[in-house]
C-alpha cells in the first residue's frame, strides 16, 4: 500500500469535490442519465457539453437533489449525498443556477440576494425585527450585487431587469451563499454577444478555490472559463479531457462540435 504517494486512489477520493459513481436516472423506459462516473477534483473548472437532450440538466438535477437517481451515488467531498434534500446539499456548500432563470421576479434585487444570504443562516426563521435591520446580511447582499454590477439596481424588481441582468442575478443568488462547488446551467443562454461579456467577466472573476461545473454550448465561454470538459450523449459519458482534446476528438466532433454551434444557442 502506497499510503504516502499523493496519487493513490484513496487520496484522490479525498480530493474530489464532487464524485458521481454509476449515476443513472430513468424516465419510463428512457435512460436520461446512464452509468455516469465522473470525479471533479477540488478547485477544478469542469465543462459539461452534449447535444440537446443529452441529459446534462438531468445530471445537474441529480447532483443538486431536485431529482433522485434511480441508480448510482453522488458524493460531495467524500460524503454520500445521494439521498439528501436539496436544501441540505446547499448547506454543505453545493450551489447551482438554472438554465431557465428562477429568480424571485416580483421582489427587488436586494430582497432577492438578501433571501439568499439568509438561506444558510438560522436568521431566516427570525420573526422579531425587520429584515432590513439585519445590517450585516443586507450589507453583504449589497456587496455581492455591487461586485458584479447590480449595485445600482438594488431597489428594482427582478422583472424590470434586462435579460442579461436577470442571468447575472441568477448567478449572484447562488454566489451569495459562498458555495464551494458551483453548478452553472448555461449561464450565457439566450444572451446577446454584448451581454455575454458581462457574464464571462463574472465567471472569470470567481474565486480560484471554487470548484465549478458548467453546462455550456458556447465554446468561447467554455475556453474562457473551464479546463476540463465532459461530453454527454444520450445520457452517457462519451469522453472527458481538456478543452483542446475534446475539440480534436473525432467522435465528439461528429456528435456535437461538427454541427454549427449557432444552432445550439
Amino acid at each position, binding site marked *: 500500500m502506497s499510503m504516502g504517494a499523493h496519487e493513490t486512489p484513496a487520496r484522490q477520493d479525498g480530493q474530489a469535490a464532487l464524485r458521481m459513481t454509476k449515476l443513472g436516472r430513468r424516465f419510463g423506459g428512457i435512460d436520461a442519465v446512464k452509468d455516469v462516473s465522473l470525479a471533479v477534483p477540488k478547485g477544478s473548472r469542469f465543462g459539461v457539453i452534449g447535444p440537446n437532450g443529452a441529459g446534462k440538466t438531468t445530471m445537474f438535477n441529480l447532483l443538486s437533489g431536485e431529482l433522485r437517481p434511480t441508480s448510482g451515488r453522488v458524493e460531495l467531498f467524500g460524503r454520500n449525498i445521494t439521498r439528501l434534500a436539496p436544501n441540505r446539499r*446547499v448547506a454543505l456548500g453545493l450551489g447551482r443556477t438554472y438554465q431557465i432563470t428562477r429568480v424571485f421576479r*416580483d*421582489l427587488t434585487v436586494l430582497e432577492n440576494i438578501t433571501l439568499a444570504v439568509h438561506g444558510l443562516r438560522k436568521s431566516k*426563521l427570525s420573526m422579531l425585527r425587520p429584515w432590513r435591520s439585519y445590517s450585516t446580511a443586507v*450589507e453583504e447582499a449589497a456587496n455581492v450585487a*455591487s461586485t458584479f454590477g447590480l449595485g445600482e439596481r*438594488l431597489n428594482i424588481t427582478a422583472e424590470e431587469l434586462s435579460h442579461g441582468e436577470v442571468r447575472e442575478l441568477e448567478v449572484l443568488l447562488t454566489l451569495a451563499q459562498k458555495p464551494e462547488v458551483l453548478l452553472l446551467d448555461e449561464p450565457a443562454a439566450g444572451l446577446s454577444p454584448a451581454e455575454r461579456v458581462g457574464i464571462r467577466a463574472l465567471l472569470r*472573476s470567481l474565486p480560484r478555490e471554487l470548484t465549478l461545473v458548467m453546462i455550456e454550448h458556447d465554446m468561447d465561454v467554455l475556453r474562457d472559463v473551464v479546463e476540463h470538459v465532459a461530453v454527454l450523449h444520450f445520457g452517457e459519458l462519451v469522453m472527458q479531457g481538456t478543452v483542446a482534446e475534446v475539440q480534436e476528438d473525432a467522435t465528439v466532433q461528429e456528435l456535437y462540435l461538427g454541427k454549427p454551434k449557432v444552432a445550439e444557442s
Partner: protein
Amino acid sequence: MKSPSAAAALNQVDDASGVIGVVDRHRRLLSILVGVVLVVFAGVLLGSGGFYTSLVEDILIYAIAAMGLDFLGGYGGLVSLGQAGFIGLGAYGIAVPEAHGFGPWTSIGIALVVVAATAAVTGIVAIRVTGISFVIITLAIGQILWGLAYRWVSLSGGDNGLVISGFPKLGPLDLTNPQVLAFVILAVFVVVALVLRTLVSSPFGLSMLGIRSNEQRLRTLGYRTGLHRYLAYIIASIVGGVAGILYAFSNNLISPTTMDFSHNGIITLMAVLGGLRSLWGPVLGALIITLIQQELSIYVSRWQMLMGAVFVVVVVFTPDGLWGLMRQGTAALRRRRARAGPGDAARPDAAGTEAGTGQSSATESSESGVR
C-alpha cells in the same frame, strides 16, 4: 475595496429614489396617521355603547381574522378557506371549558392551546400542498371543525350553541363591563396588527414572499419551505383563534353558524376584496363587508348576490383588492406629480447621472475585480 463601493451603491440607491423615497416616507407617516385616526374613531364608537359598539367589535374581530388569513394568503400565497373554523374553535375553546366549570382565564389558556394544537395537527396535512389544493384542504378542515361543533352535541350543545357565562377580570380590567370589553378588543386588534406587521417585514416574512414568488428556488437556497409554510399556517390559525376568543366574549354565544361554509367564504372575501399582501387591506375588507352585511341586509334580502357581484368585479379588475387600487391610484398621482415637478431630479436617469461619481467608482471597482 468592495465595501466602500457597496456603501456608495447603497447611498446611491437612496439618491436615485429621491422623490419617491420622500413620498414613501410620507406614506408611512400617512398610514400611521390613518391608523391612529381609525383607532381613535373606533374608540369613540366603542365608547358610545349600544349598536355601534357591537358593530365596531364585529369589524375589529373579523379584521383580526382576515389579517391572519392575509399573512398566510397574501404574503405566503396560501389562501385559506378555513379561517372561520379557527374563530369557532377559539370561541368553543372558551365556551366548553366554562360550561365544565373552568374559570375564564383558564378557559382562555385552554382555547389558545386547543387552537395551536389543532393548527399544528391539521397543518401537517395542509402544508403538503399549495395553490388550489391548499384552498380545498383548508376548506375541508373548516368543514370538519364545523361538523364537530354541529354534531358533537354533548360537548358543543349542537345547533343551539353554548352561552358564555364567565368573563375575565383583572383588577380594573373587568370584561363584564361592555365598554372595557370593547377597548380590550381594540387593544388586541392593535397588538395583533403590530405583531403581524413585524412578522411580515422580518426575514421570516421575506421568506414568505419568496415562497409566494418561487418556492422551488427558495428551497434550493437552503430554505425548508415546508417548515416556513407550516409555521405561517399555525400563526394564521392562532390569530384566527384569538379573534374567536374575542368573538366569544363579544357575542356571549357561540353556535356552529359562526363557522359554517359561508362564514369561511366571507373572511376570505374580506381579505381578497380589501387586498392581499397589505395588512390594511383585510381591515378595509372587514369594514366594508361587515357594513354591507349590516346595512344591505335590511333592504336587500339577497345581499350575498350583490356581494358576489362586487367580489367578481374586484377580482377581475383589481387583483390586489381595494387597497391595491388605492395604492395604484396614489402611485399614478405621484408619477404625474413627479413628471410635472420642478427640475429633472424626479427622473431616475437624471438621478443616475447626478450620482454619477458613485456609479463610476462602483463599476470601476467591479472591473478591477474582474481582471
